[in-house]
């Protein structure tokens, strides 16, 4: 073998100087990582204002999603709302309707929690068949961040909520007026009124300055730019909880109030956008698992399309309503693989196959597709989204 000039010759970076400390007061990733970006699927929506894009999960590791590449979903665009102009109202069945400013919110005792936020439509394009070639597109309507905020319970207690009020209606400040009804039981349990994510202010596209965090429940309920919380004795039945985010079954009847995101997993590497480039030998198979009903307990991986399974290693024990990273440290013989992962959560629920889901729901649900995903990995290391018998 000939010596590697990268080692034997003095390289420019080993002799010249790099950037000074103020080159980027707020840094962006180095240019060599410029493919790690959100992407959208243009044909999905009429325009990019009321639309969605996808987290590049195929290119990330660990579990925390950087804000700058965490998927966005807007119904009337990402608005610019200053902290100084921010107001949060609590009204309805309360002793005293209240208005809070941003500065007010910072004076309540606050908490930190890591939670995933998954759009109910994640994997929704795959109901009728394998369509999109890439984990980013099939499973990228998800992100996972550490949130800082005030429990919604604290604010409801501050206003003196009426215990006869079984619902809260939460509404955003943007033109879509996105609003959802949430049962009081959940509102008092773990819902957060959050203003920081991963240690810094929320990004504009994620609801700056304040959004709702509804752990384990579909992303549409995580109202951005939240401006109003109304305690009520009945749900509003808003557009987002009737005409959208309801799941049509094969017989035409639709399920509503399908809030929880069931246990799900996906192999992020290798995958269509992250092929194997090193040939046979040691191979790290990696992916993400999550459940809206609790912690992930176990993830199994199959390389033969589900004939046999091996239990993967969890990077850390699963945490409630948060992404869990799994690894299968294996040896690849260079042969074709049909790669799958299967998550189990603490309720004992096992992630179903596409066939199992279709048997119960038909093909028209759009939302809540948590089926086992299959990647066909060829001998050349390239991967493709397929379905198997």
């Amino acid at each position, binding site marked *: 073998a000939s010596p590697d000039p990268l080692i034997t010759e003095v390289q420019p970076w080993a002799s010249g100087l790099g950037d000074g400390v103020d080159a980027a007061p707020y840094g962006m990733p180095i240019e060599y990582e410029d493919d790690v970006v959100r992407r*959208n*699927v243009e*044909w999905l929506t*009429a325009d990019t*204002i009321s639309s969605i894009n996808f987290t590049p999960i195929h290119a990330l590791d660990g579990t925390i999603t950087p804000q700058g590449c965490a998927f966005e979903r807007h119904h*009337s665009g990402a608005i610019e709302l200053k902290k100084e102009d921010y107001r949060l109202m*609590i*009204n*309805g069945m309360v002793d005293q*309707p*209240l*208005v809070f400013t941003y500065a007010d919110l910072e004076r*309540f005792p606050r908490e930190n929690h890591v939670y995933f936020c998954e759009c109910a439509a994640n994997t929704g394009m795959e109901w009728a*068949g*394998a*369509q999109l*070639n890439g984990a980013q*597109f099939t499973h990228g309507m998800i992100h996972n961040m550490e949130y800082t905020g005030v429990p919604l319970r604290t604010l409801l207690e*501050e206003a*003196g909520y009426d215990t006869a009020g079984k619902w809260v209606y939460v*509404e955003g400040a943007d*033109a*879509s*007026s996105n609003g959802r009804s949430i049962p009081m039981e959940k509102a008092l349990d773990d819902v957060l009124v959050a203003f920081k994510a991963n240690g810094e202010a929320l990004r504009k596209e994620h609801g700056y300055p304040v959004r709702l965090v509804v752990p384990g429940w579909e992303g549409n309920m995580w109202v951005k730019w939240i401006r109003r919380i109304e305690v009520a004795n*009945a749900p*509003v*039945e*808003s*557009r987002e909880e*009737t*005409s959208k985010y309801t799941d049509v079954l094969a*017989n*035409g*009847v*639709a*399920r*509503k109030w399908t*809030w*929880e995101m069931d246990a799900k997993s996906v192999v992020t590497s290798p995958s269509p956008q992250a092929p194997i480039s090193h040939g046979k030998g040691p191979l790290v198979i990696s992916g993400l698992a999550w459940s809206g009903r609790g912690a992930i307990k176990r993830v*199994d991986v199959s390389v*033969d399309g*589900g004939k*046999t*399974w*091996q239990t993967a290693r969890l990077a850390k024990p699963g945490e409630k309503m948060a992404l869990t990273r799994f690894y299968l440290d294996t040896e690849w013989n260079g042969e074709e693989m*049909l790669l799958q992962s299967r998550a189990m959560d603490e*309720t*004992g629920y*096992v992630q*179903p196959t596409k066939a*199992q889901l279709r048997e*119960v729901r038909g093909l*028209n649900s759009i939302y809540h597709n948590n089926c086992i995903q299959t990647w*066909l990995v060829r001998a050349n290391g390239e991967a*493709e*989204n*397929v*379905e*198997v*018998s």
Partner: protein
Amino acid sequence: DTFGIGRAALPEEIAAWDKDVRPDGTGLPVGSGDVLTGEEVFADQCAVCHGDFAEGVGNWPKLAGGADTLADDDPLKTVGSYWPYLSTTWDYVNRSMPFGNAQSLSPDEVYAIVAYILYSNDLVDDEFVLSNETFSEVTLPNHDGFILDDRLETEHSKWVGEPCMENCKDEVEVTMRAMVLDVTPEEDEPEPEDALEEVEAPIAEVATLDPELVAAGEKVFKKCKACHQVGEGAKNKTGPILNGIVGQAAGGVEGFKYSKALQAKADEGLVWTEDTLAAFLAKPKAFMKGTKMSFSGLRKEKDLAAITAYLASVDD
């Protein structure tokens, strides 16, 4: 035990924000609107995206049709075929529409629009008047088409326990491949250097604009506002900024991602003059097959003259 943080919300403030309407009509303001008025308001405010007959333009939502399709392969879910409550339609139109100009409609206009949507779905006749009083007379066809989430009974009870680890199936075959449909977005090719060559825009003729025509054009421009901004601080939205568009080379707004069709015309040297703009706006899809502008077109000559005069008045 409270913290004493925050202040009392005033009645005027609650009234300004608490506008949601419940299925039983709670929250509806006094007002009314008939189908024929609704047809006019709809044509002005809604048809640009939803079509004159609520049939939808391009990828924008269809509001009418789809009766009895919910059990089909590809159900069409509209207000008539799917939405369970009329209150939802009223509430959504009132608080979230028109797209790009939300909360600009009067209660009477909302009643009229909703009456027209009901009419478009063959649910009322053309003499129907929707008001806070007649509201409860209307029951939408799919009112009983929903069940509460039953996943715990129908799915979870089956899918628990120790899963199979070995010999789980005899054979595995690939039954479907994403390649067959291949709708994955392609990465943009880097632009060749010469594509960045400056297109020399002709100097716009300095003509005196008729102020009345410009004022009329500003009204017509309401139809465009859902997607386009003009004036100081304008930003690219669904469509590009239109400041100084008359006399500009097509495809020239910085930071806007044009359709392939428009880019092709731009590469051929299309310049937006009052004439080319009028031709485009009369029938966008005919002038430029493949444009992503979903506008169906301005039918009246005087509207075309007005809009081009107005756009000519909006400087860079």
